[in-house]
């Protein structure tokens, strides 16, 4: 017989980080497909560039930190960061800017804090936010759907809505514009639908749990519905907010990043709801086209506090 010093338990389920990350990448296929359908091959080029740049940055960071490149290069987490950032930026974004964003995300957002599992902020959103404040013009011009990436670019529906309202247009006039589709932005609403489909797949495969997406969507829809009810002329409907911008991608793929999210079920409800409300607030009164990235980063800041106050009741202990 072989004598070992193995400690119990002696059996594990065999779920691994790479498998989890692969499932997330798989769930992003519909979004990618819709973007390619709407904007041509350019989004696919961005994806490829982002993936290669991210792997290179990861390898560089591991080398600088004197860590072995395996298993981290193969864990897939850096690819998820890359794909999320590539899908979140406009397809017209110049390639060097995207590479810069990826470098910020991986080197600063992830490895400056200690790499996988240690980053307090969502790395993809760190990259996105830095790109947005550094290159606001390039980051806010989206091509018109179906026209190809080199065609006329214009403001997004969320942008058009805000500027329209500031210039005293009525809601009907604004929504008659070319940037709007059935319920949300033209084109973008199909991306949202694809993100929702991917998100439901992740829920079904138990890669993510319902707390964060449900709380975020409710946190966004509730104030939107309330203010629309009070003043329909100045506030878009909850349906519009749910279908517009990065709502669905954010709810199922970005806010659910476990490393930078709150960690208990109850904490995740607060965390998700906070992202939802902040997204609506930034969209309504802020100066940026969409609020998801900043809402996520702000709630990342609040995670230690949320975690501190949402420790579940322990068996045999009274509620604290």
């Amino acid at each position, binding site marked *: 017989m072989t004598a070992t010093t193995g400690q*119990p*338990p002696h059996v594990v389920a065999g779920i691994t*980080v790479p498998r989890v990350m692969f499932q997330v990448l798989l769930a992003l296929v519909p979004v990618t497909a819709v973007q390619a359908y709407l904007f041509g091959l350019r989004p696919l080029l961005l994806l490829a560039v982002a993936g290669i740049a991210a792997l290179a940055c990861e390898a560089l960071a591991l080398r600088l930190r004197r860590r072995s490149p395996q298993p981290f290069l193969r864990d897939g987490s850096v690819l998820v960061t890359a794909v999320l950032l590539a899908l979140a930026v406009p397809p017209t974004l110049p390639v060097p800017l995207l590479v810069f964003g990826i470098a910020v995300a991986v080197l600063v957002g992830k490895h400056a804090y200690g790499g996988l599992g240690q980053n307090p902020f969502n790395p993809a959103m760190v990259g996105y936010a830095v790109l947005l404040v550094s290159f606001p013009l390039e980051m806010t011009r989206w091509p018109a759907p179906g026209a190809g990436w080199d065609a006329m670019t214009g403001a997004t529906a969320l942008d058009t809505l805000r500027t329209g309202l500031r210039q005293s247009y009525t809601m009907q006039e604004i929504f008659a514009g070319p940037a709007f589709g059935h319920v949300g932005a033209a084109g973008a609403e199909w991306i949202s639908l694809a993100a929702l489909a991917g998100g439901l797949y992740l829920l079904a495969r138990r890669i993510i749990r319902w707390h964060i997406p449900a709380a975020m969507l409710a946190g966004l829809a509730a104030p939107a519905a309330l203010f629309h009810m009070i003043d329909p002329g100045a506030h878009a409907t909850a349906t519009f907010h749910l279908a517009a911008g990065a709502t669905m991608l954010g709810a199922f793929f970005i806010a659910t990043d476990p490393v930078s999210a709150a*960690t208990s079920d109850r904490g995740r409800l607060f965390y998700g709801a906070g992202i939802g409300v902040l997204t609506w607030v930034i969209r309504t009164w802020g100066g940026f086209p969409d609020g998801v990235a900043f809402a996520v980063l702000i709630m990342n800041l609040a995670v230690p506090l949320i975690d501190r106050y949402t420790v579940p009741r*322990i068996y045999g202990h009274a509620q604290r």
Partner: protein
Amino acid sequence: MSLRGGLRLDSHKARPLERPIRGVPPPTEIALALDQGSGEESVPVVKAGDAVHMGTLVAASAGAAASLHSPVSGIVREIAVRTTLRGSGRCIVIENDGNDRRAASLAPLDWRTLDEVALLEHIAAGGVAGLGGAAFPTATKLALARAARADLLLLNGAECEPWICCDDGLMRERAAQVVLGAQVMLAATGARRCVVAIEDDKPEAILAMESAVSAASDARIEIRVLPAVFPLGAEGALVTAVTGREVPHDGLPPQVGVVCQNVGTAAAVARLVQDGQPVISRIVTVTGSGVREPCNVEARVGTPVADLIGACGGSDGPELRHIAGGSLTGRILQSDTVPVTKGLNCVLVATSADLPARGMEMPCIRCGDCATVCPAGLLPQQLHAAARTDDTAGLVRYGLSACIECGCCDYVCPSAIPLTARFRTAREQQHLQDMERRRALDAKARYERHQRRLAEQAEAERRAFDEARRRARDSETGTD
């Protein structure tokens, strides 16, 4: 109310149950570990050269160790340190003469005529201990329940851990014994009713127990079928699943009116009253793909594990691992010469296909899957972070002491972090720190007492000096 968290696992119990319980021939040499699994040692009352019979008391009960009886007749050879389930420990080694002469004191008991105190004394004298694995003295536990006026006797037949099926086999073949044991324990504690909890993956055992209860026509005993979830058979989880009450973190089940006993322990009590036989044998599951004929066996306490495997056709295969217990909470056996104890429920001879190796450990990604399955409601991810940074306050805040070491968090962890082992280490460290702190406080108190005494002494000397000087002065003025 159901269990929080937990896992639904492949049970791996079918194969040993295809065969009836098989006897293991008593070995020529028996090694009775003084620590039978509770972590404390009983006190030997025999010495080398003494002749013993089957059932002769050889070690007296002490603390959490029940009394110990010779499983064979023969001569005590020595009391020496041997390899045991817990690594190593003192054992009473008895040379078996093969005659199985019974001690004269062994006689059936008319238990219905005895009062609670006399029954508890008999159970203690019979060396009955928790056969579920803890090996804690049954009489002590029953006495606590009696003192707390617990009204429910909860018989644990859940057997939730994969591979282990000795209780299943027992309930199938000896259900009447379990029911008789329940009746005796009801009489010994004054509890008014008894629930036998069995998981729903044991339909044969449930049927056998139901017919035994109706044959005994005892309305106080009820069979409760529970879902097969690991670790539902853990004491706290079982109490909550059956009664809806939670055992306080600083208390025991009798505080919520419950006393838990394993079904095997009940059967041992029944044997004690039926034919006066103390606990000198137990049923052990011998299983795993490395065993030729997986089977439940009945073996004398002190029999080497290798004999049990031999009775099951021997083992075969490369890189076999021998585990005492199941795949989630069992311990690796360092040698197959270790003797059977009252707490040993299973010998798992596992191939690498049974228990595939874990992947490489990765950093925690805070996915929270561990928290979802934790039956104690803990956040293992936060405990892990606290343990990693030696954050003692964090370990307390996140409830390290409530961890029951079931291993569910390890099982689901995508980063292959050995969480349970880390928590066990952290707990040992915490225990050491507590002892260190207590020692430091004691030393401080001693020092302060010493200082106070010195100060008092100095004060007294000063006063005496002043007094003497005053008197001297007085006498001077007096003479002037």
